């Protein structure tokens, strides 16, 4: 991590005054970072910098000798108390860097920085995106900590082989729907997958934050502790995002996940859907194992494998028909506005991806600048020392003094660049976040198209059922006295038609519901994205300006100190 390479600098920043810096640096000349940070792939660069900015704010804390090696260092701790124990629940809101470091160029900027920084822009590991849904007074604060190894209790052929990690999930809230204001549970990653799957089923059409990846490869390849820590951070981000979604934060699934002790009582899938038609889960029924199979209700879920195989085939045939025949399907996606928005989302995603990539490059360039400036400064400090030690002539001492000024400035500037970068990462991370959100948008849009497909399928099925019934009736009417077998068939067909009609109505209702969800979510996304991006831009610009000013002052001083030479040479 960045921090470990630059302990000398970072400790100096906190513990020593600026004037002491050089002596610290002189003691530690070999500690300067020659190692370039190698960014193996895009995401890791920004996220690791985002995480490591904590390390910039405090000295590295050595884990106590007897602690479980799996215990990761806390994700964020008040930098004034570096020795807070790892799982001590201190929820002190971290001070904003801007407050601590900035000497703002105008008074308003300070307040705006605070304003900007409080609800949405916290300095902790996840950039929380959206504004608090209703009033800013209700909140859910979730923390993921304390990973522990646990044994699988079920019988396994090889004893001791099935271990997994659980995480302590602590919630603090003042929302009334919860039992209490502070509570914890232990959950494993599999539970999070379940939660995510259930939410996807219950909240079709919504922009549901995507859950962390399973990372099967990385879990084998990475160091255990590093992987667990990475996962812990990801889980926390995910749960926090869920908690800021205005609808999902109130969901039963989330409540169960956060509160119910012991094994997570959410079934991993729903091949039985005991749901109210408005999509809400009727949990008590499910918990008691009641399963009411009603064909129409089943259509509110997209077709999956197993029992739905037949339905899958039908819908597949329908979609092929839609594609190939070119004829308008019975119910087309006629919402021009939606299609336009969909196109816009696609463009947005492309540009977000591009911008996110360039942001990474910018961050890297800034970091490199800071590094090289620091190295230059250190070299001059060594030179200064050398000239002073070997000085025979006064001109040497003068030069050494000049050099020292430059070196000091370079080291200071280097530090500023690094700080600037930490902030830049924080701000531009918003781009990353919204890029990730595009996944949710895809999910919501595909909910819509699969619901539409279901409707289309049912409609065309109905039409074929009707024509079959007509044919049978025509045939049977030709037989004098009635055709017992045919009449029976017609009755059966009529029954099927009735059920299918019902299903069609349910499917249409579901489709309309999802459409409405899409609409409100798009509105919300646009609104929140506008606000978040504007804040991001402002924060970015403010930071750049602020730090540029500091750097300018540092060099102006040296220019002043060396101004005699300028006069002489002209």
């Amino acid at each position: 991590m960045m921090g470990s390479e630059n302990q000398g600098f970072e400790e100096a920043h906190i513990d020593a005054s600026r004037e002491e810096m050089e002596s610290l640096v002189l003691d530690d000349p070999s500690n300067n970072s020659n190692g370039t940070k190698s960014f193996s792939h895009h995401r890791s660069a920004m996220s690791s910098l985002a995480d490591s900015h904590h390390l910039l704010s405090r000295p590295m804390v050595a884990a106590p000798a007897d602690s479980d090696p799996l215990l990761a260092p806390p994700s964020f701790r008040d930098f004034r108390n570096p020795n807070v124990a790892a799982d001590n629940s201190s929820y002190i809101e971290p001070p904003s860097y801007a407050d601590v470091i900035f000497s703002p160029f105008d008074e308003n900027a300070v307040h705006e920085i605070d304003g900007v920084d409080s609800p949405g822009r916290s300095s902790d590991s996840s950039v929380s995106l959206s504004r608090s849904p209703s009033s800013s007074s209700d909140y859910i604060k979730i923390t993921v900590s304390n990973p522990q190894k646990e044994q699988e209790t079920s019988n396994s052929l090889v004893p001791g082989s099935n271990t997994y990690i659980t995480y302590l999930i602590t919630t603090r809230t003042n929302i009334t729907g919860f039992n209490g204001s502070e509570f914890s549970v232990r959950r494993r990653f599999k539970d999070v997958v379940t939660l995510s799957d259930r939410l996807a089923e219950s909240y079709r059409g919504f922009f549901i934050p995507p859950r962390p990846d399973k990372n099967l490869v990385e879990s084998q390849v990475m160091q255990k502790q590093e992987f667990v820590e990475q996962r812990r951070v990801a889980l926390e981000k995910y749960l926090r995002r869920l908690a800021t979604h205005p609808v999902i934060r109130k969901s039963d699934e989330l409540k169960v996940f956060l509160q119910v002790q012991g094994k997570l009582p959410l079934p991993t899938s729903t091949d039985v859907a005991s749901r109210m038609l408005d999509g809400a889960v009727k949990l008590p029924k499910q918990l008691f194992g009641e399963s009411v199979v009603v064909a129409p209700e089943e259509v509110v879920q997209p077709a999956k494998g197993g029992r739905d195989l037949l339905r899958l085939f039908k819908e597949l045939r329908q979609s092929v028909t839609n594609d190939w025949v070119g004829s308008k399907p019975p119910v087309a996606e006629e919402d021009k506005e939606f299609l336009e928005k969909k196109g816009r989302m696609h463009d947005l995603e492309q540009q977000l991806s591009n911008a996110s990539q360039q942001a990474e490059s910018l961050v890297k360039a800034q970091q490199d600048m800071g590094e090289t400036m620091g190295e230059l400064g250190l070299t001059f400090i060594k030179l200064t020392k050398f000239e002073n030690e070997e000085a025979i002539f006064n001109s040497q001492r003068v030069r050494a003094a000049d050099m020292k000024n430059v070196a000091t400035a370079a080291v200071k500037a280097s530090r500023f660049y690094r700080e600037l970068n930490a902030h830049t990462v924080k701000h531009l991370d918003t781009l990353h976040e919204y890029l990730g959100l595009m996944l949710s948008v895809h999910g919501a849009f595909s909910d819509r198209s699969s619901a539409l497909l279901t409707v289309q399928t049912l409609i065309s099925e109905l039409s074929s059922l009707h024509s079959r019934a007509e044919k049978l009736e025509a045939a049977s009417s030709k037989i004098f006295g009635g055709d017992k077998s045919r009449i029976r068939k017609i009755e059966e067909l009529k029954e099927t038609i009735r059920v299918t009609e019902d299903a069609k109505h349910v499917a249409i209702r579901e489709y309309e519901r999802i459409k409405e969800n899409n609409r409100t979510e798009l509105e919300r996304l646009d609104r929140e994205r506008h606000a978040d991006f504007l804040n991001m831009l402002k924060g970015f610009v403010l930071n750049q300006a602020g730090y540029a000013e500091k750097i300018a002052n540092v060099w102006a001083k040296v220019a002043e100190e060396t101004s005699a030479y300028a006069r002489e040479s002209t």
Partner: protein
Amino acid sequence: MITVVNYQSATLLSPQRSSSGSSHSPRSSSSQPYLSISVTEPVKLGNGVQAYISYRVITKTNFPEYQGPEKIVIRRYSDFVWLRDRLFEKYKGVFIPPLPEKSTVEKFRFSAEFIELRRQALDIFVNRIASHHELQQSEDLRTFLQADEETMERLRSQETGIFKKKPADLMQIFKEMQTRVSDVVLGKEKPVEESNPEYEKLKNYIFELENHLSEAQKHAYRLVKRHKELGQSLSDFGKAAKLLGACEGHALGKAFSDLGTKSETLSVRLQKEAHQLLMNFEEPLKDYVRAVQSIKATIAERANAFRHQCELAETIKLKEINLDKLMLTRSDKVGEAELEYKELKAESEEATRRFENIVRVMNEEIVRFQDQKTQDMGIAFHQFAKGQSRLANNIADAWRSLLPKLEACLS
């Protein structure tokens, strides 16, 4: 003799303490002696492997030894090398001003930056010679500044100075010198080295100084690169921001677009600063390194002179003993031997004189060198600091100008 030197094109690397007057109007009425030279107008001549750059060298002077107030000649890099070698031969003990490297690879590329850096360095080289109280008297300098091109070419091809040796040979010679010097540093007893503790310290200092300076120069060069890279990434980021803005539209879109434009502006500014940094900070450091290397060559010369003196002293001792022997035996070879002895004595005295001269000159030179370098670096530091401060202020101003609109959007 006070020499007034001015710099027409080499603006900031002026090693001399003072300069005044413009080269356009030499003070014909003034009795102030001046010798001012400009190396200008680099022109690429020739083709392919034979390609080289020629320079217009303009001399303005009122020195009586010169042919007139102004003279213009065409010179190429190897002519400068000839001059440097001649001066090194003649003025032992003087720290001859350093030349820019004879690059073999970059020459083919001939980038504008490379050409300008070289021109600047050559200009400084020749002006430093012109303002050195001994070197400025040199006849070779006069030749260099005034001779026609054919003469110059003839002289150039005749030269076989120490620097004309093949790089491999040169390496060998330097290695030997270095071993000898470092042997002394390590305390190995070698009979042909000076046992002058102050001088030892100096040699030590010079060698270590080169290491430090090389490192500093390396980092300075990297810093130049970082500026270019930051500029590039800002430009790319700006473009991406503009595209994103086009997607978003309305106030947000405009905000992104403004940000993008500012980024691109700053990118250009950074590229400019990178160039300034190269010219006014990295190059002086490189120049410093070269100067130290030139001193090392002088150190080698001194070692040679000392060795020569010692060898002669040894030889004389032997000859003395021999002479005494001959005199005792009343040999008829006495006359011959006495003659030889006298000649050797003269040679030895000459060698001693030369060596002592080198020592004396070096002592003066080291003072001058330290003074000059403090000046040079002072200017370089000043330029560096000024440049960084200006750049940072430009950056701050640019970003700040976006704030009013952004704040309006957010309110």
